[in-house]
């Protein structure tokens, strides 16, 4: 059976039957594209040898059927092993691209075979050939229909897969039915397969669209991660315009995203990008100054904006403040972790989402991830670099720190080199141009000439964009004119021409030099460029120009067309400026041109003759000939070819090709007015229904890795929940129901509040008013303390809250209290979507606040603004709070709940700067530092130290960085990012974080420049080791009660004359230590609270002012050392 057929068989002519089959086979679908399948056959009888079943198929090429007999026989046999063997050979044929269609009847019989591998291979065959043999394919349908009912989910799924893959129009109704049924299958895997089947059916019969959309709608509501990616893919292929289907699923998709498999993530992210563009407002539209400065402050490292805070506030008040939709924020936040994916496509998808959707200040996060992809395969690099090139035009700053990652290696493929060059050019600016040019110098000597040409153009672009280096570049390019390689010279000429156009007068030397080149250089474009230059600036080189024309006239007939045209041009211009010397030459050239083969040249000659040579008939234009020819021409702008490519969605095929690809969905523009955000609200009943139906499964299928906030629909459960906890409770319906319905409006406002609160008083008040109104209407509402916090806050605060909030039950309150009462950057996202009772309390409480709110808010406004190094005179926080207000606040806390202290943003005393490196010791480099008293963004346990470096030398200082920290055990340091270079006279300000471990030990480290190392140390005053917290009076008392005995330190003091006002006292204390004021009922008592940064232990300060100058200071703290030192410091401050 298995023996190979004799060779003679191979040679036997094709039988009649066989050729008939072959004809039948050419289905209309194939005919267009593939041609008759037999055309495959001609070649490769022997090439097949390495394949599994060699010689028989080899013959299939020459004359088909006879040797397939044995295959048919094997397929008909009873033995599975024979069938399998036969099927393997057949599949090998298919893989090789051979025609095996005549075996169709024999194969299709085995569709019901018990052996699963045979079955699989039969499926492979069917899918490949069913389209061609539709009638026969129908024989197999009943098997699949049976398969759809199989108890094994894998069999159900694969039956559906094959059924939907055989492209036979007759079975459309059957497919439709099967898909509908599978869409509500128990097994998510089968549902996934159903989602996959949708686009298949759609491509087969687009009339089914409406029905398919119904199925898609149903599957979109599916809550398993397995289905999500596939159904969105189906959505994109079938009905990408039905954006309305997404509304209800938006939040779910965002939350599931992290658990969806990687390919699904890409599709979902791309779709959500489009969705967000239609539903949200542009985060950059207002470009509100305040917002920007707030962002900056958060990211810390950027140079500070030293604009007047008041002016900003005023200007903002006029505009309507932009408030990011919480759903918009949700998307940004949930996609961010995916930048860490190992899958380049996912990273790119997130990157484009950020590029298109995120506020300017946040886009930066993607740069690092994109640069990482440059380590990947060269194809990935190619695509990423294209996108980076586009991004780097719009947002140059983003990639500047990674400049060196784009340096070119000699082993890079040329196409990568050229793209990197593009990016380097886009990134060039005044500060880094010198390094870039130095790098370019090495590139120019490369052996890869295409690359050299591109480099020269890049130099040209740098020169046009950066005036400072124009002369340097020009000189460099002129030197290249003497290069041995003609291509290099030619390219330089072309670029020099463009540069000279910008300032021709100064460069007649160069023009002369170039004139000489006409003798040698042969590249037409270069010759033409030189001629044009000489013609254009013939007045600067009056002696040479006619001579060049003479030479060119001589060689005119041998020139390329483009050169000839320029010769005519030159002649005409010379005639106009210097007709005495060039009249004859011009005549001669024009005569030559008159009889040229090229009609362009003939036309040009005729036209010019009429224009410049005065005859009696010549028209009015003659007078203006000079103006026409020697008009001032605008200098060309050398632009990147990637400019404006971002109107295509980044990461898309269309963007890469810079042309619209089939099926490309335009990225819509931002709407002017935000569409109703409530469309994304999900009604409660729906949720409960779903959960009850799927409760069990949910337990099992619960996403694994989305931690707490990922799971329960739109609600964000507390960040601070321990992971294990959240895994159990996350998707339980309770949290969903309690919050989802009421939350939205709430969320919106609160989101707004939290974002603006610290920035914008007016906005705040508006917000407040709205809130009040709502409350009047709605009565007490269900709770949902803020769920969607802005990202920054979360990062910065997440940890603190964890600490601060303590046991779960308290959290809700901590939350509200902090939010209401004050100046804080509002603590974060943590929220246990609480029980009903406290909520009512909360609602009541809210009513009370507004009146008192304005005060504290104002403080926060100031706080945020004075991050700038020379701090304006901020008013210490509590001094503003009038006594009445304090009592008001006190009233708030009367409820008998114990409130966990929440961290406040720092109150401000005058910021003291310390010297880190004196100008003399630092050889011209002087460094100062101050404690900015803001939470350090990277790590809440660190004290943020703002460092200001000024370069007083007259040379550039490069690569400033921190190195070799020598720290005591437990101390940590977060260096500031290296400063590439600091120009003479410049000042840079950076922020670094130091975890002092609550000790006043100095942190020693080296400050390095490219040449020197300086040993420096930062020793914190004890007052800087803490951060203010908010507390109520009751709380304060309670905590104080706990910290008595050993932890209490009391000292008497006398207050000097000038320090006897409320204002002065508060100011002195807050300047000595980073503490927050605590309201106090008594008139002559001042209370402050803070928490040490590292361990979070409370530090409570009480100052009792008695008669006259006498006062008593009490500090309560677990950390006795800190307490003692603090007492000393405060007394000293007050005594001043």
């Amino acid at each position, binding site marked *: 059976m298995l023996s190979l057929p004799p060779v003679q068989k191979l040679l036997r002519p094709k039988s009649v039957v066989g050729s008939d089959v072959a004809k039948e086979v050419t289905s209309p*679908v194939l005919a267009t*594209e593939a*041609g008759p399948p037999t055309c495959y056959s001609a070649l490769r009888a022997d090439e097949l040898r390495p*394949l599994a079943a060699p010689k028989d198929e080899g013959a299939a090429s020459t004359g088909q059927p006879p040797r397939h007999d044995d295959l048919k026989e094997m397929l008909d046999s009873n033995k599975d*092993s024979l069938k399998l063997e036969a099927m393997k050979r057949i*599949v*090998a044929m298919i*893989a*090789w*691209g051979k025609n095996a269609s005549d075996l169709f009847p024999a194969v299709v019989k085995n569709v019901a075979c018990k052996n*699963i*591998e045979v079955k699989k*291979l039969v499926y*492979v065959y069917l899918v*490949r050939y069913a*389209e061609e043999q539709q009638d026969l394919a129908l024989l197999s349908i009943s098997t699949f229909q049976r398969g759809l009912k199989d108890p*094994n989910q894998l*069999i159900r799924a694969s039956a559906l*897969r094959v059924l939907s893959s055989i492209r036979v129009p007759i079975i459309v109704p059957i497919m439709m039915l099967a898909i509908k049924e599978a869409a509500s299958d128990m*097994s998510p*895997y089968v549902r996934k397969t159903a989602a996959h089947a949708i*686009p298949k059916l759609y491509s087969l019969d687009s009339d089914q669209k409406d029905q398919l959309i119904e199925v898609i709608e149903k599957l979109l509501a599916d809550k398993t991660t397995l289905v999500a990616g596939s159904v969105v*893919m189906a959505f994109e292929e079938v009905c990408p315009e039905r954006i309305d289907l997404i509304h209800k699923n938006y939040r779910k998709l965002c939350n599931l995203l992290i658990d969806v*498999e990687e390919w699904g993530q*890409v599709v979902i992210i791309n779709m959500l990008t489009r969705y967000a563009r239609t539903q949200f407002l542009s985060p950059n539209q207002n470009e509100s100054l305040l917002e920007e400065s707030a962002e900056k402050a958060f990211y810390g490292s950027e140079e500070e904006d030293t604009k007047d805070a008041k002016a900003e506030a005023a200007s903002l008040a006029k505009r309507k403040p932009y408030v990011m939709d919480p759903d918009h924020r949700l998307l940004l936040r949930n996609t961010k972790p995916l930048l860490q*994916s*190992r899958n380049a496509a996912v990273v790119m998808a997130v990157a484009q989402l950020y590029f298109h959707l995120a506020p300017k200040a946040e886009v930066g996060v993607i740069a690092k*991830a994109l640069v*990482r992809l440059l380590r990947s*395969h*060269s194809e990935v690099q*190619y*695509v990423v670099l294209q996108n980076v090139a586009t991004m780097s035009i719009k947002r140059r700053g983003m990639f500047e*720190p990674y400049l*060196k*990652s784009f340096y070119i*290696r*000699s*082993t890079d*493929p040329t*196409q990568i080199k050229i793209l990197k060059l593009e990016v380097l050019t886009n990134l060039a600016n005044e500060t880094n141009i010198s390094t870039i040019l130095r790098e370019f110098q*090495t590139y*120019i000597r*490369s*052996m890869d000439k295409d690359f050299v040409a591109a480099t020269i153009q890049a130099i040209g672009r740098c020169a046009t964009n950066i005036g400072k280096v124009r002369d340097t570049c020009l000189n460099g390019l002129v030197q290249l004119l003497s*290069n*041995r390689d003609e291509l290099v010279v030619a390219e330089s000429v072309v670029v020099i021409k463009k540069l000279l156009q910008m300032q021709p007068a100064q460069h007649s030397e160069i023009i002369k030099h170039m004139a000489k080149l006409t003798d040698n250089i042969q590249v037409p474009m270069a010759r033409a460029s030189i001629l044009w230059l000489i013609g254009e600036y013939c007045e600067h080189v009056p002696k040479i120009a006619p001579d060049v024309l003479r030479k060119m006239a001589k060689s005119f007939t041998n020139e390329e067309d483009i050169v000839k045209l320029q010769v005519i041009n030159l002649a005409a211009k010379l005639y106009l400026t210097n007709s005495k010397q060039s009249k004859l030459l011009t005549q001669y050239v024009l005569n030559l041109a008159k009889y040229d083969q090229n009609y362009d040249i003939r036309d040009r000659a005729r036209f010019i003759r009429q224009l410049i040579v005065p005859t009696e008939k010549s028209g009015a234009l003659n007078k203006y000939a000079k103006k026409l020819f020697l008009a001032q021409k605008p200098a060309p702008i050398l632009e990147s070819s990637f400019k404006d490519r971002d109107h295509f969605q980044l*990461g*898309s095929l*269309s963007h890469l*090709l810079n042309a619209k690809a*089939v099926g490309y969905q335009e990225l819509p523009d931002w709407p002017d007015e935000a569409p109703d955000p409530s469309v994304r609200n999900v009604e409660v009943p729906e949720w409960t229904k779903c959960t009850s139906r799927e409760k069990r499964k949910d337990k099992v*299928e619960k*996403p*694994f890795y989305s*931690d*707490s906030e990922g799971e329960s629909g739109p609600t964000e459960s507390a960040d601070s929940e321990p*992971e294990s906890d959240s895994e159990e409770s996350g998707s339980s319906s309770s949290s969903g129901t309690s919050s989802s319905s009421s939350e939205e409006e709430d969320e919106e406002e609160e989101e707004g509040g939290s974002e603006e609160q610290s920035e914008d008083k007016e906005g705040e008040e508006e917000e407040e008013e709205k809130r009040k109104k709502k409350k009047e209407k709605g009565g007490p509402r269900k709770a949902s303390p803020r769920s969607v916090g802005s990202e920054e806050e979360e990062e910065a605060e997440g940890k603190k809250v964890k600490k601060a909030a303590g046991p779960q039950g308290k959290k809700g309150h901590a939350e509200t209290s902090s939010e209401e009462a004050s100046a804080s950057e509002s603590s974060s996202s943590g929220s246990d979507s609480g029980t009903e009772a406290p909520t009512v309390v909360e609602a009541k409480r809210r009513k009370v606040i507004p009146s008192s709110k304005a005060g504290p808010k104002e403080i926060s406004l100031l706080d945020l603004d004075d991050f700038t190094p020379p701090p304006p005179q901020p008013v210490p926080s509590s001094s503003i709070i009038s006594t009445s207000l304090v009592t008001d606040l006190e009233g708030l806390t009367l409820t008998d709940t114990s409130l966990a202290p929440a961290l406040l943003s720092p109150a401000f005393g005058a910021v003291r700067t310390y010297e880190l490196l004196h100008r003399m010791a630092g050889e011209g480099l002087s460094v100062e530092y101050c404690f900015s008293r803001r939470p350090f963004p990277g790590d809440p346990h660190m004290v943020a130290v703002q460092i200001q470096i000024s370069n007083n030398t007259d040379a550039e200082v490069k690569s400033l*960085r921190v190195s070799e920290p020598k720290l005591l055990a437990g101390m*940590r340091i977060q260096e500031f990012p290296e400063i590439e270079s600091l120009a003479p006279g410049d000042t840079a300000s950076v922020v670094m974080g130091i975890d002092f471990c609550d000790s006043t030990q100095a942190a020693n480290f080296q400050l390095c420049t490219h040449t020197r190392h300086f040993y420096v140390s930062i020793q914190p005053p004890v007052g800087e080791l803490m951060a203010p917290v908010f507390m109520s009076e009751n709380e304060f008392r309670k905590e104080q009660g706990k910290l008595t005995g050993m932890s209490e330190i009391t000292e008497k003091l006398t207050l000097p004359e000038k320090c006897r006002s409320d204002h002065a006292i508060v100011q002195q204390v807050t300047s000595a230590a980073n503490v927050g004021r605590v309201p106090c009922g008594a008139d002559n008592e001042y209370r402050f609270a803070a928490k040490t940064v590292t361990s979070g232990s409370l530090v409570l300060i009480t100052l009792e002012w008695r008669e006259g100058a006498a006062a008593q200071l009490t500090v309560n703290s677990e950390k006795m050392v800190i307490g003692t030192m603090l007492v000393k410091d405060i007394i000293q401050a007050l005594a001043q």
Partner: protein
Amino acid sequence: MIHSLFLINASGDIFLEKHWKSVVSRSVCDYFFEAQERASEAENVPPVISTPHHYLLSVYRHKIFFVAVIQTEVPPLFVIEFLHRVVDTFQDYFGVCSEVMIKDNVVVVYEVLEEMLDNGFPLATESNILKELIKPPTILRTVVNTITGSTNVGDQLPTGQLSVVPWRRTGVKYTNNEAYFDVIEEIDAIIDKSGSTITAEIQGVIDACVKLTGMPDLTLSFMNPRLLDDVSFHPCVRFKRWESERILSFIPPDGNFRLLSYHVSAQNLVAIPVYVKHNINFRDSSSLGRFEITVGPKQTMGKTVEGVMVTSQMPKGVLNMSLTPSQGTHIFDPVTKLLTWDVGKINPQKLPSLKGSMNLQAGTSKPDENPTINLQFKIQQLAISGLKVNRLDMYGEKYKPFKGIKYMTKAGKFQVRT
């Protein structure tokens, strides 16, 4: 999405085709061949080619072009990344991914491809799942299959597909439970003529080979996680845990996988373990040039540098080179002009050097640029960034696994400009 896939070998033969939708004629590859001809070298073939009706996206690996045909808009990286995944899967299945291997296992290849995509959309790309669906061919299994009539194809849905840990198959059993982690760091650097570093950075990966029974939950912590500036994870790593505690916590896939790749923050200075002294001279108007290079250790933290290999692409004008190495072997290919010197270990007492002369083409002037020297080397038991694994703990299972950690530093793209 992905319509068809063609595999093309170095000589331009299409040796495998697979269609996920209607058949696309292989004549579409002509556009590809055209582009291939235009590009002088294989790696210069543009990865995306636009033809009138299709787009061809290709990757080039193991001397094979994997050309995907698509018809509509799709993120190009999506396709490229998928193609790379296909190659990785083949490699995982057959040990090597070569034309011969693919041809020998064409049926398995076809079955795998069939599972990986459905209608052009990736279905199962996790190798743990694929291996459950279609078992990789081994000699033993082939024998057993022929005797018992069992098949290579699983008839149950791989448990991973539905579980919360889709990358791990269930029912894993080992008699020896072992987990090995290789911390491999690569130094990418460009060193300029004078020996100063233009750019240098460290990229590292942690490759794991985990053979543990059941469902182990591992945590891996570092002594100095702050070194890691930018990281990308295998999907199994819990991101939140990393964010908050800088601990890698994960349920590993079974077998080999890449747990983490990282980039060491640029603020840290990179120690360059070797230096190259070079003296390459082309003289104008002379047909002889001088060539001399010496390799020596620089900052090696007391470890030996081994596996040193020097390659350099000489300019076209070089006809031949007569060189004598103080150790190792060298080859100069007069056709491609590629000089390769396999140095081996560096002995600090006696530095390896390669000296001699070059025969230059008479009459040509000296080349603009001296050749760049590419360096490869290995240092065992050292992670040059100083990264150290603190501990590895296992939860969820009772047995005591054997744990091993290995460090290695390698040269990545290490170039010396001369």
